[in-house]
Structure formats: structure tokens, C-alpha cells
């Protein structure tokens, strides 16, 4: 079974927990324990706010197996306010046109379901920001 493959990622998927490098203060997501900036040991956990903006995006019409039911769906590079960029689907778009620079926030949603006896995999997606949070 591949349950452990998803279970071990619960902190990053549900709470957007990455790391911060104690040596150079670089914020890291997803966690990797070795700082990509200074190559030092970096295991200090850091929770991101979940706020960011769209850096680039694409709407996928030809989905891979496992994602056909979701197509078309929009994947974006989201630049978090803390600095790092991550890749995620956009959701709750309604009729709003997507634009580069659009403010978005993290929500928890179903990512995929592997059939009646399979797993439901949850994780983060990003929606247009509802309230302009005061920084």
C-alpha cells in the first residue's frame, strides 16, 4: 500500500509547514533538511501563512490518469509572501479571470480519489484571497 507515502507528508500538505535555515534564514518549502541556499543543515520547522500571489499559471485540459475527473484544472506557480514559490492548483475561481499577480490564499481540498476502495488524498490548493489580510 502507498498510504505511508501520503501520511508522512501530512504536515506540509495540511498545514504548509516547511523549514527555515538557522544559518542563513532562508525559508524552505517543501522541507528538505539541507538548505538549498547555503547547503547547511536546516531542520527548524516553519509554518507559512498560506498567502501569496500567482506568478504563472496554466489550465490543463489533457490530464494524466488519476486526474481526468478534475480536468480542466488550473495549476499555478504561487509566490508565497514569505518568499518561496510553490506549485499548486487554483480553486474557487468562479468567473474571475486568472491574472499573474492575483492575490491567493491556501485552502485544504481533495486532490484525488483513487476509486471506491482507494485513498482520498487531501492537500493544499489556492483560491483568490477573500479578505486582504493586514501584514
Amino acid at each position, binding site marked *: 500500500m502507498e498510504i505511508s*507515502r501520503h501520511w508522512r*507528508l501530512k504536515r*506540509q500538505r495540511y498545514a504548509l509547514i516547511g523549514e527555515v535555515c538557522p544559518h542563513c534564514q532562508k525559508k524552505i*518549502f*517543501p522541507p528538505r533538511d539541507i538548505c*538549498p541556499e547555503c547547503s547547511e543543515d536546516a531542520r527548524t520547522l516553519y509554518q507559512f501563512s498560506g498567502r501569496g500571489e500567482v*506568478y*504563472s*499559471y*496554466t*489550465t*490543463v*485540459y*489533457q*490530464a*494524466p*490518469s*488519476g*486526474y*481526468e475527473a*478534475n480536468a480542466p*484544472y488550473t*495549476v*499555478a*506557480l504561487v509566490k508565497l509572501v514569505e518568499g*518561496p*514559490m*510553490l*506549485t*499548486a*492548483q487554483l480553486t474557487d475561481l468562479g468567473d474571475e479571470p486568472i491574472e*499573474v499577480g492575483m492575490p491567493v490564499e491556501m485552502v485544504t481540498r481533495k*486532490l*484525488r480519489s483513487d476509486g471506491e476502495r482507494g485513498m482520498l*488524498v487531501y*492537500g493544499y490548493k489556492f483560491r483568490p484571497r477573500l479578505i486582504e489580510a493586514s501584514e
Partner: protein
Amino acid sequence: MRPVVVAGVGMIPFERRDEDSLVDMLAMAGWNAMEDAQLGDRSIDAVYVGNMASGLFNHQESVASALVDRLGLMPAAAERIENGPASGGSAVKNGFLGVASGFYDIVLVVGGEKMREVIGPKATDVVACMTHPQAEYIYGVTLPALAGMFTRLYMEKYGVTHEHLAMVAIKNQENGLLNPYAHIQMKITMEGILTHPQAHINSPIVADPLRLYDCCPVSDGAAAILITTEEIAQKLKRPIVTIAGVGQATDTHTLQERSDPTDLRAVRISSQQAFKMAGLKPKDIHVAELHDAFTILEIAESEHVGFFSKGKGAKALADGETRIDGKLPINPSGGLKARGHPVGATGVAQIVELVWQLRGEAGERQVKDASNGFSLNFGGFGNNVLAFVLRREA
């Protein structure tokens, strides 16, 4: 290091090949390269097979061991080399190192992939398995999705238009019509794939802004080269084409981690390495095979390799400079766009095309007076890239 010569090349047509297994295809391509080299009674020391995903596509592993047996080359050494869509390039590099180091004298390098044994969405999924499992794959990221986000940024930054992207597809499919080994044998027009009000029926969106004709097809196929020392090559009485430069560089696994996602760092560095080793500059190249898995990549790579300055690749394309009769023909074979992209085969097929071009054996798509060639095999989404310079010796 000793000089390394490509003494034999061979391919089979890339297409949907329902009658052949992966090992059937590898064997046919390997056989063609051995025939071309006219080895006589000399034996092959080692076989390298470039293949990305025989386990997921064909439920078979250890395909290099299967291939030496099939070709009757035992006890030759045999390994499969995996480096995503640059598996073929990596296999060529490993074969090169074997001969250059003096460890082997005659090496067969075969690249191949059988992708059409699974349905389309499954093939998309298998290829997507090379993305970051936690940061990309699980969010439904595909290679066209990464290319789509890259394309949006590149168009915005450098003024590349949908027309420019379509020009790559049109040029490469025109070249493919001259290549009997090309998967796609069809002329397309700007009107038919882009400007007609109903063009979206012919060329639907795959991952916007990329449409169907911006993406390479899913193909079965194999290609092979036989490489050896200068001394042996001179006895074989074939034209001498040497692998004069080899480069390889890596970049971050994900697109999201790059400080400028439009900068193809590994393309720049691997190309510089290959040119330096060959003692040549981009302006010395007469024919190039670039990795146009998506139309934007041919434009972006032509700039990062150093053929055109940043932001000028699209203009060079529009001016016809990269056509077969232009100043620097790019992808006379049809490229991945028309020849097809059986992932593990591509890096080897690019070398095969360059050898044909440099020997003057490329038929209707022959580039005039070509003696220096360049190829670029782009692995992952630019995270592991190989570059080669080939030279026809007088």
C-alpha cells in the same frame, strides 16, 4: 582522453509500432548501426541502453541484458541508463567515456522507448513521474503544464507570440516530410492550427498557452550509434565523425525553485562545456538538433545555447534563419515535434541525424556544407541537460 568516433548509426522509423516489443525495436536499431559500421569480425565490448521507463510502460526491466542476448553480443558488458527524456544523451555520454578513457574500444549505444503500449493519459502520467512527487506531481502537474507556465513567462518577458510558436511546429513538420524516419508526416499551416476561427478544433489547448501542435507526439522508436577509437574507425572506411564536445549540467528538480524560471541554466552551462571541449563557438555550428518537446523550447534553447542572443530567437525563426536553407538550420530531422519523442531514443536519434548530415547522407533534408553539428537533449524540465558537438574530420 582518446578521440571518439561515431562509426555507425542506425534507426527505425518512429511511429506507433504495435507489432514490435521494446527489445525488438532496440535490436533493430542496434543491428542497423552495426551494419552501417561494417565491423567485420570485431566484437563489441559494451552496450549502453538509454531508456526512461520500461518498467512502467512495458512491465520489463533490465532491458540492456535482454538486448545483448537478443543481438548475440555476449559476453559484452551491458547497462541501462536512465535520465528521463535525456536518457539517450546520457547513454551516449557513458559510451563516450568508455571509449575515451581507453577502457573499451567498441561500444554500442541504443536509445529506445515504447510508449504506445499504454493509453494516452497513462503515458502522460508515466512521463509526469519525473516531476517532484511532493511538490509537483500530486497537484496534477504534467510536463505540458510545466511547459505551459514556462511559455507564459517567456512570451511575456521576450515578446514571443502564438504565431512564433506555430512557426516552430510548421517548420519542423515541413522538415519531417523529408525524413522517412519521422512519426508525423503532415504539412500544417498557420491558418489550420492557429488563425482560422475553427483552428482550435485541429489544435485544441493541452495546457494553455500550449496547444496540441505545440507538443511533440507520443511515439515508439529506437536509435543507435556505434562508437570506437580513431584507429579502428580508419580501418572501417566510413567517413570519420568525432564526438568533439560533451557537456552535462543539472538544475533544481522543480521549476518553482529557480530564481528566474525563464533561465535555462543547465542548457547554458552544458552547451558552454561542449563548445569549450570542442574548441568551437556557437557561430561555428552548421546544423543543430534541439529538444523541441514543446515549441517554446526550440526558441528558448536556441538562445540559451548561444546561437542567438536572449529574446532574438523568435525573430531568427521568423526570418527563416533556422530553416534547412537558412543560416543555421535547426531540427532538419523534424525535431521531436515531427520525428517524435520516444523519450529514451531522442538523445541518440539526434546524434544519428547529425552524423547523417555531417556525412552528407541526409537525402532531401541535407544541409549544405555541414561539418560541425550540435545537439541538445533536455531532461526533466531542464533539470538535467546534455549537449554534444560533432565534427566531420577532413
